[in-house]
């Protein structure tokens, strides 16, 4: 009887150990580092308590990067949502042929690494070497500074991220759509419901749990954005595509201020945690996770 009590713990032990070693332990170390003013030349660090945290909130650069991250998320999340939902509807529609091929085609970008995605889009959008601008030159059109104008760069990045992520969320939506009972559509058809009516009254409400999952996952993804802008734009032009995580990276590895970077990481962690909890709370209130 006693042995049985331990069995669940034995099963979760491997996963818990990994979580402890790779998440909790570095997290604690990071928190300790955030209490120190680290030397530029890797010399002895000075304990400064929460001073680094005050510096984070006094740093206009970090707050700007944070604001930019929120703005980017506000632009990217609805884009991802509607594109992936649209693709999922297409891929489950009886009138579309060669669905398997198309699914692979749309899903492919989400298996590419961020660096590869950034390089592909650099070849596409570069002002002098890019495929699109070379096409414009051949057609006698003016080149577009996709990555040189702050606004264009920001929008380009949001679209690239949506391109990269939508395939993955499409698969989640497809699973959601396929789990809706067919009887509901059959009953609606008998009642004479139009395609739009069936979508708005059956598909969309029944997809609410999936939608919440997609919104939560895409929020986390867009808040943690780093690799694609880092490689594609280097955070520029100026700082127009420097997001919060890149700011942490620059503080740690360019300015070599590990203490301040660690405190920035903790501030970001708390913000992301609050957003995540809020989203879970909203989803629970709607009883969709019960």
């Amino acid at each position, binding site marked *: 009887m006693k042995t049985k009590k331990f069995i669940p713990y034995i099963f979760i032990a491997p996963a818990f150990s990994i979580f402890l070693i790779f998440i909790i332990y570095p997290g604690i170390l990071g928190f300790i580092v955030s209490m120190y*003013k680290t*030397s*530029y*030349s*890797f*010399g*002895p660090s*000075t304990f400064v308590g929460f001073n680094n945290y005050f510096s984070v909130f006094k740093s206009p650069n970090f707050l700007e990067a944070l604001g930019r991250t929120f703005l980017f998320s506000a632009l990217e999340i609805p884009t991802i949502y509607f594109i992936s939902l649209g693709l999922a509807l297409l891929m489950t529609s009886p009138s579309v042929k060669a669905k398997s091929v198309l699914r692979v085609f749309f899903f492919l970008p989400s298996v590419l690494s961020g660096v590869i995605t950034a390089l592909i889009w*650099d070849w596409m959008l*570069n*002002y*002098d*070497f890019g495929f699109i601008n070379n096409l414009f030159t051949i057609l006698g059109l003016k080149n577009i*500074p996709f*990555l*040189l104008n*702050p606004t264009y760069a920001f929008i380009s990045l949001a679209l690239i991220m949506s391109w990269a992520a939508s395939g993955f969320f499409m698969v989640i939506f497809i699973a959601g759509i396929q789990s809706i009972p067919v009887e509901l559509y059959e009953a609606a058809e008998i009642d004479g419901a139009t395609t739009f009516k069936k979508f708005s009254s059956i598909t969309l409400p029944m997809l609410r749990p999936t939608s919440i999952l997609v919104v939560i996952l895409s929020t986390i993804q867009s808040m943690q954005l780093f690799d694609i802008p880092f*490689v*594609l*734009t*280097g955070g*520029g*032009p*100026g*700082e127009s595509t420097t997001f919060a995580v890149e700011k942490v990276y*620059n503080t*740690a*590895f*360019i*300015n*070599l201020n*590990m203490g301040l970077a660690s405190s920035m990481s903790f501030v970001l962690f708390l913000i992301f945690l609050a957003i995540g909890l809020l989203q879970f709370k909203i989803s629970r209130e709607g009883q969709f996770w019960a």
Partner: protein
Amino acid sequence: MKKVFVILTLLLISVMTISFAQQITLTFAYFTDGPDLPVIKSLISQYEQLHSDVKINLLNIPYSDYAQKLSTMIQGGTPPDIARAGDIIPYQDVALNIAPYIPSYTGESVENWVQNHSGFTSMEYWYKERGEILGIPWDVGAHALFYNKDEFAKAGITAPSTIPWTWNQWEDAMNKIVSSEAAKYALTYEKTSYRWSNLLYQAGGQIWNDKDQCVINNAEGVHALSFFVSLFKNNLIPESVWVGNTPAFSYFQNGLAAMFYSGTWMIPELMQKGSVNFNWGVMPLPVDKVNAVMTGPKVILGFKSTKYPQQVADFMLWLTSKPILTEWCQKLGAIPANHALLEKGVDYGNPELNSVMEIILKDLNEGTKPSGNWPANFERDWIVGNTAIITQTYYPRLVQDIVNAISGTMTPQQALNDVSKYFNEQMASLKSSSK
């Protein structure tokens, strides 16, 4: 027979065990600077043959990740034994002082060795400040202006080889290249604050004065930045390099830009067959008020944490010794960071490379002669003291503000005012924390 075989096998195993047990491994963190990987590998195997008790584990890290990887290794308490570095300053508190090992290896006193080996300020500074040798200058990088001979011929321009162009002559040539459609752009200029600073010093400017105040926003600084910005505005330099993230070399390599403002480290790359499909040359850096050519050695340093300080120091001293340094420079077209070798000159064994190096070394010689506050301003800004620490730590702000001036969101004066304000704030913070 069987017994003999067993005994011989046991003997072999024990000999191998003893020799492996005696062999030590030194980890050498390295970044490639052009196609130099085969050369360093061959030097390492040479060293391993000479010292069978030492194995060098070369850790080749891409330059773009180098600072981050090395700093993570140091912060994590597992630095390498030896590293190639661009500067000593970031590693001053963790670098191994090799001064005690110099007399036994070289047979010279430390003072003599410092004097004979190199006149480069960084090493002399640390020896004077702390009585320590924290790193040995290895080879020298100097800024250089490369040009596409075919496109120059098409534009009807002759590049200077001895007397440098003035900025005005340079700009005229740039306009001629673009208007004659010899190339889409006249110049491609690497996106680093260090590279831009060469214009600052040529204009007679400086980042810091001798009272530790950032004065980059004075008239000379604004003149340098205004000139630079005007080259973008007139479409002589591609914006993609500075405002975007496109490597400057790709424009030169593809014939889209007729000139390339970079440094001597690009020579091995350009010398490689197939790297560029045109004839290229080098010219002296254009001058404004001052003939200034920025130069700096790459250093090799050891880490205090090594278990084998003697072997680390021996390897560093061997690698930077005259015969090995000569071999390194001959194979790579590099400039030795060694007084005697610099004065004697290196025969690169290749007429084309010899002629290129002749122009560069002459330009370097002329461009490092004192004139006004040059090169004291450069040393203060980038090499020694708190001023250099601030510049080297917070240079991204300078790059960012140069980009702001190029993209028109700030005037050159506003951009440099912002840099000055930020650098002065950081200096005040550094001084208050070190009190």
